[in-house]
């Protein structure tokens, strides 16, 4: 620890989160501790966002946004108070601290830093990332690439009534300081690209979209294979345009790799977050060391994959991410945990404390989450099904407070006698996590990841879902 005794810190720099903030942060943390808090955490954030939308042959929306703010969290025992503000002035931060302390029945004292010796040297994960924002595409380049995308959709698609390309760049600088000695900075750069089409022919309609996302790759838009993306979207839209609605019922299903991983994310991943343990809403709370899935299933959550949408250099509580094995050969190994989760459930932190922005308190959230590769080929999985559903592309999904999950199939095909036959639409898969996980009986050898956004208790965060092709022996398919 590097103790300081600066009582009246000089104003920090508002244009960058650098060590000039140390004095002000130490004062806040010290005051919080002196008031009786067990732990005080300050999260500072600056953001710079750019959103661009292209429709048909025109740029129809350019929406830059920038902002700053702070979230102050105070713990006493297992309780906590959290206050967010856009006002980063000394007065604004002090007021926020005072309000957070007041929630726990504590009062801000005039002076004093009991139990707090000062912050250590800044752990700067943002070093070397100073050119990420300037190195990402500027408006002219972004608009040109999107228009290229919508032109390719027109070239490769048929019966297209609407074509859209979207680009979002989210730059974020964060600084986290806590009275346990956490003092860390990071810079994040998330970019996502989307292509969407609506195909229509008489009463037949299909709407298909794909999203591609990265973290820490300023060149993503430049290196984007627009041709391949447009082909993928147009092929899918064409296949689904005249598809019949799926017949409802119980049946085996083979789910494709990449975004097929949303089944694990929704059906099981959320139930392995300590926020669910705290609420008593996961059936797996007391199951560590016990089988909860088929032995073919090994599932991992990590924040380390290079360039993946859910990767982090540190979480939003200043902890470096880990590779967390959640399930190994069907046995539950660990829960994803944040600071509050560790305090309230005893599960050790995993670098999974995440939040959408300073306006949310961090919570245990997934990062890059996937089922590990197996030994089979995708063709072997399909060949093993007499009559079932092949889910080539998934839409979104959700999980409810009793563990019941659902997700939409965007592009589906019937499997008949071990072969893919006709396309079908309108399918929704529903079930309960503890029932479906033992039914994932085969995993293929083609693990791949896909970018997504996950909305939950601490807002919307960037995540990756993933899996190889998997076979579910039986699942409820909602349809017509």
């Amino acid at each position, binding site marked *: 620890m590097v103790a300081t005794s600066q009582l009246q810190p000089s104003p920090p720099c508002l244009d960058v989160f650098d060590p000039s903030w140390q004095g002000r942060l130490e004062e806040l943390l010290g005051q919080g501790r002196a008031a009786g808090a067990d732990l005080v955490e300050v999260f500072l954030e600056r953001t710079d966002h750019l959103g*661009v*939308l292209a*429709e048909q042959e*025109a740029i*129809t*929306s*350019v*929406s*830059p*946004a*920038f902002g*700053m703010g702070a979230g102050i969290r105070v713990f006493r025992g*297992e*309780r*906590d*108070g*959290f*206050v*967010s503000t*856009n006002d980063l*002035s*000394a*007065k*604004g931060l002090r007021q926020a601290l005072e309000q*957070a302390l*007041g*929630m726990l029945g504590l009062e801000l004292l005039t002076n004093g830093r009991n139990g707090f010796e000062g912050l250590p040297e800044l752990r700067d994960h943002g070093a070397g990332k100073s050119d990420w924002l300037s190195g990402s595409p500027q*408006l002219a380049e972004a*608009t040109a690439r999107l228009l290229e995308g919508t032109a390719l959709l027109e070239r490769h698609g048929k019966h297209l*009534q*609407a074509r859209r390309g979207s680009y979002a760049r989210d730059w974020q600088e964060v600084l986290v300081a806590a009275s346990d000695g956490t003092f860390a900075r990071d810079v994040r750069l998330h970019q996502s690209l989307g292509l969407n089409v*609506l195909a229509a022919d008489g009463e037949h309609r*299909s*709407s298909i979209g794909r999203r591609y996302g990265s973290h820490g790759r300023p060149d993503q838009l430049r290196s984007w294979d627009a041709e391949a993306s447009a082909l993928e979207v147009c092929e899918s839209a064409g296949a689904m345009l005249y598809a019949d*609605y799926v017949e*409802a*019922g*119980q049946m085996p299903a083979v789910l494709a790799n990449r975004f097929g991983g949303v089944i694990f994310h929704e059906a099981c991943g959320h139930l392995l977050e300590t926020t669910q343990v*705290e*609420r*008593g*809403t996961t059936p797996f709370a007391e199951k560590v060391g016990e089988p909860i899935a088929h032995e073919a299933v090994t599932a991992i959550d990590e924040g380390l994959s290079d360039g993946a949408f859910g990767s982090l250099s540190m979480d939003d509580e200043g902890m470096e991410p880990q590779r967390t094995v959640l399930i190994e050969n069907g046995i539950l190994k660990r829960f994803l945990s944040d600071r509050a989760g560790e305090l309230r459930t005893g599960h050790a932190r995993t670098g999974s404390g995440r939040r959408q922005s300073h*306006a949310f*308190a961090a919570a245990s959230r997934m990062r890059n989450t996937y089922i590990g590769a197996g030994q089979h080929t995708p063709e072997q999985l399909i060949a093993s099904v007499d009559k079932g559903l092949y889910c080539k592309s998934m*839409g979104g999904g*959700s999980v*409810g407070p*009793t563990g*019941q999950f*659902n*997700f*939409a199939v965007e592009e589906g095909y019937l499997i008949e006698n071990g072969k893919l036959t006709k396309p079908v639409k*309108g399918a*929704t898969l*529903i*079930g309960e996590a503890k029932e479906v996980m033992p039914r994932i009986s085969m995993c293929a050898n083609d693990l791949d990841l896909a970018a997504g956004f996950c909305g939950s208790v601490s807002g919307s965060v960037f995540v990756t879902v993933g899996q190889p092709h998997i076979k579910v022996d039986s699942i*409820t398919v*909602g*349809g*017509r």
Partner: protein
Amino acid sequence: MGTTPATDHSNTMTSGAAGTLNAGELRDQLAQLAQQHGISRWDLGASCSTDTSVQVDRGEAKQMKGAQRSAITVRVWNGDGLVGITSTSDLSASGLEKALTGARDASAFGNPDDTPAFSPLATAPLPQLEQPRHAPQPILELLSTLKQAEADLLGRHPAISTVPYNGLAQRSSERLYLNSAGACRHQALSTASLYLYARAEETGRKPRSAGAVRLAYGAGELDVSGCIAEAAERTISHLAYAPIDTGHYTCVFSPEAFLDLIGAFASLFNARAVLDGVSLSSRESLGKPLAVPFLSIHDNGLHPGNIGASAFDGEGTPTQRLALLEGGLLRNFLHSEATARAFGVAPTGHAGLGAKVSVGADWLEVGPTPGSGGGQQGLDRFHADGPIVWIDSLSALHAGVKASQGSFSLPFDGWLIQGGEPRSIEAATVAGDIRQLLKAIVGFEGEAKVTPDGLCPHVWVEGLSITGEA
């Protein structure tokens, strides 16, 4: 309103303590900055709010939160008449200037084929809304109220073990719309909300859950006992459950469920979606039948049941009641200034604020068209001849609705009623096509109910596909 001088951000446009917007100062400063940068045409939307909220867990405070938020969106028109926009939460002078110049730079990429203008109604008289403002309660008082509510709910039935999702929140907020032509809109509001979502489980049976929500203009005005009673009743009613056979059923949608479904397909009535080619409706749909001839749908943000109603939209246009569907015929679309101009009508007060302005519904009124007979009379789900599926709440609308295709496939909570006896359905989805559904409405049951999303009676629809796990 007063303003408090800056902290160490100079000339901040909100006062630090109360978080109130100073319209005059903001307008003067923006006008000055615009002049410095050669910008003659601009408008601005601003908001600020102060929130407090609490959550509890089995008698203990789980989390207490507070927030002071502020945000500004600036639009500027450049010399070529193109529009650019920038948003920021930095209301300092430098933040304002950065937003203004950012919008000017973005305007170089404005869409010449679809350029928004000031709403011609941005200075029209505003409707008078009856919105009493209440001072916020101390957060520890909120905590005490919510702890008591949780305890009361837990005491309603031995199977109710937790209330995993709960919250009591209050907000004081203000919003502004200003433009360089002199429009100046301002609205201040206080609101409060309570939600209680209980989980119940009996030995050897699956856990079940249900909840209730209440809104009011102040925390002291909330119907806490009503919320507890509704959450308990709904949760307990799902304890005795059974699977349902897959098939086609006559369904009765609760007011909340039907409003959710119509809201998910609101692009049917959205002029922006029509112009973009992603609506099931077209320009030619106006005046054509979309539903059974006894169905009416109005958008009415001014209804007194719409807690927290806005008096004006993002472009300053006054909120109004608008007929969307009358006698089953499509009457009007929801409009912004730009879409209204494209259709040759007046803006309807449903716009956001953007380079490409979004359009959205406020608060829907659904019911029988006066003089139409209202469909089949005397409907009573507890005295029906055949089995009835009573759909209480729909889930996963974000994933299960394909608005541009018209299809939906949605999980729901509800009951199968046979011989007048309701039995909770274990797990099921309802699927169909919205156009077919609107023409398969049989009639309405009971009086229209005020919900957070609108006004609606129970709605009977025949022949919907239900998938169960039986």
